[in-house]
């Protein structure tokens, strides 16, 4: 346990300069910071705001996993979604039922986001912000208030809304009213905790706004304090320039291959995707920036056979080509059977530089395109990629 605590201390101390905890505690918000690199994904920091809301002391919380705040009526589906977001290293905003130390449940808007290392794009921490959702009487002022809040919180969103955006002065007045409104709400119903907690709680724009603001504030502090140690963090996975993304010539040559495939770089941590074809994006429904820098495992889901995933890992480890049939999921979570072929790709140095993964939607009916079997078409992609990677890395300045 001591070494665990030691790791937890280091999780912060190595990355952020001194006084970071004090700076974080100057923020009024409720939030926790967890470290996915330590076994058990424990909490390494809990703000005073958090401890106050949940009724725990710091020592009762540091080193524990976030599931300690869940309870019998916490929605399992929501928990799974959070776990998936952790696995996929993505942000998530979701309402969740949590339990205080005294056992009382309450709804909160949980906003979690990864904190990335600026130099190599790895996830260093996860930041979790908790915004309690006050009970609201149904179909009342609150929903209207919600809409107006939607309108004016920032100019951009307002343009999309139903009403055209008002001038700034009007906006800020409304927001003030909003603030007063919700304060009244919470004061007026102190014992609302008894109200049916089975009903999922509606979050209004105010909660979302608060969550976003808290995230932004915490990230600001973390970024600032990481500058001083030189180990910068940032809220976005920074563009993997240089080693991550491919050179323009290769990118362009690969762009000529009109099939679904990705290139992953085994020399980078967690073997991220460094190239994804347009067809791949069409097949899976993702945008390019959602895919680059991530390991392909985000395509797998609940019913994906872990044995198949293990098989893939083994073939990759031994640098052998393989073909598997794996259940994958599009962005909209619709599943499809993916006839996946993976092959190592060497560059001019003769060493394996990438792995290419070629996807075929097995449920697609037009299998025999121009007489080439799907397997042959996959192999032709592998060949074209091998030619491009080898040839275009021959230049003197390639590594």
């Amino acid at each position, binding site marked *: 346990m001591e070494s665990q605590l030691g790791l937890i201390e280091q999780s912060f101390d190595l990355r952020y300069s001194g006084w970071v905890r004090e700076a974080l505690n100057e923020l009024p918000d409720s939030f926790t910071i967890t470290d996915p690199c330590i076994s058990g994904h424990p909490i390494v920091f809990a703000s005073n705001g958090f401890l106050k809301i949940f009724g725990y002391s710091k020592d009762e919380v540091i080193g524990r996993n976030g599931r300690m705040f869940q309870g019998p009526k916490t929605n399992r589906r929501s928990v799974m979604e959070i776990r998936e977001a952790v696995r996929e290293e993505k942000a998530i905003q979701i309402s969740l039922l949590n339990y205080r130390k005294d056992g009382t449940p309450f709804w909160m808007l949980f906003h979690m986001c990864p904190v990335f290392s600026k130099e190599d794009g790895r996830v260093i921490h996860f930041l979790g912000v908790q915004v309690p959702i006050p009970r609201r009487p149904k179909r009342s002022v609150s929903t209207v208030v919600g809409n107006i809040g939607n309108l004016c919180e920032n100019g951009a969103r307002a343009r999309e809304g139903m009403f055209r955006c008002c001038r700034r002065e009007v906006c800020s007045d409304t927001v003030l009213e909003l603030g007063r409104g919700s304060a009244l709400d919470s004061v007026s119903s102190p014992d609302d905790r008894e109200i049916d907690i089975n009903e999922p709680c509606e979050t209004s724009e105010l909660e979302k706004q608060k969550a976003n603001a808290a995230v932004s504030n915490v990230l600001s502090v973390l970024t600032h304090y990481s500058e001083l140690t030189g180990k910068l963090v940032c809220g976005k996975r920074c563009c993997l320039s240089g080693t991550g993304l491919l050179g323009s*010539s290769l*990118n*362009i040559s690969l762009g000529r291959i009109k099939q679904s495939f990705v290139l992953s770089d085994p020399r980078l941590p967690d073997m991220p995707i460094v190239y994804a074809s347009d067809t791949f994006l069409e097949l899976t429904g993702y945008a390019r920036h959602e895919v680059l820098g991530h390991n392909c495992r985000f395509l797998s889901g609940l019913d994906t056979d872990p044995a198949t995933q293990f098989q893939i890992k083994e073939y990759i480890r031994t640098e052998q080509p393989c073909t598997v049939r794996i259940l994958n999921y599009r962005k909209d979570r619709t599943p499809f059977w993916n006839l996946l072929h993976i092959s190592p790709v060497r560059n001019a140095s003769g060493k394996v530089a990438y792995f290419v993964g070629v996807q075929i939607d097995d449920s697609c009916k037009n299998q025999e395109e*121009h007489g080439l079997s799907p397997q*042959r078409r996959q192999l032709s992609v592998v*060949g074209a990629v091998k030619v491009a990677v*080898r*040839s275009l890395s021959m*230049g*003197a300045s390639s590594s």
Partner: protein
Amino acid sequence: MMLRIKRVPTVVSNYQKDEAEEGVRPAGGCGRNCLRNCCLPGAKLPLYAFKMVNKFSSDKGLVDCEDKEAPVAFLDSLLLGEWEDRMQRGLFRYDVTACETKVIPGEYGFIAQLNEGRHLKKRPTEFQVDKVLQPFDENKFNFTKVGQEEVLFQFEPSNDNEVQFLPSAPIDVENSPSVVAINVSPIEYGHVLLIPRILECLPQRIDRESFLLALYMAAEAGNPYFRLGYNSLGAFATINHLHFQAYYLACGNTLEDLSNVVSDSCICLQDNNIPYNVLVSDSGRRIFLFPQCYAEKQALGEVSPELLDTQVNPAVWEISGHMVLKRKKDYEEASEGNAWRLLAEVSLSEERLEEVKDLIFEAIACHIDDNKGVTPTLLEDSDVTQSLEDVDALTGSHPAMVPA
């Protein structure tokens, strides 16, 4: 007097043995699944039938065929797919992609490859080198003795002026097809042999029909990286059975690539309502893309009256440095300072330029490294290949943008 040399011949087929090893063949079939009468009947191979149209005249428009996508990329896909299949089946003597290779620094871009597996440590064979034309010798190795698994597909002209592909077609013994086979000692990925009318056992000599076939294959592959070659006897052809060789060597990007990158960038700017100018120079080798905001500033009243008074509208020629002035005063007082003052109003702010660059790079799905551009080699490639470096020349108020 006969001129002879001794050398170790390259092994291009797994069934290629030198004469001493040939031995006696069993009468009723060799059991090796070759292409001779013993094994050929009933054999089937994929057949690619190409269209015999004069490709050069229709080069300008790709309107040859209704289905543009399929034929152009198709022979390419077929060849690469079959080749990779044979790779994975272990038919090659070594993995050529595991051989280190590099471009030799210098003016010409020579390529060096370390390939220890190609050369066999065997007893050298004698070759007569003073006769370029020699008769076909059945007893020596020829391509009818290769295993059928080494043949990738038949390559024939199409009957009805349309590209056709049959995944499994019988081999017409009466009318010998031409075939494409692998070279089991490849010099690069995709190294194949094109053997015209294989069953006719023609000796290694070029004729019009065969050469045309080879050219059709190059055209049909439709891939700028596809290279075709021929060695005559005496010029180190290994086997006296008519054959060409081909493989893939990528050597930088083409004019079309540069054009596509630039036009995609322009389309991105248009779609995002960002006005811009484009300058093409150096025979199409350098392209400058300038997003600008002068008109917007003018409309918002943010341009100084003095500048407005010159009535110079900064379009592409002005931004490239060619200032056409309307007033004598401006002409006489023309200075670099004045020119820069104008251009400074034209260009976007640093932050905005970065935003626009990110927008474009996201749209064209690649990240052009500001510092490196492309490798020195690609820059040195002369007329054929184009440099992408200068697509990167999105301007700020960078002095280098104005040509001297």
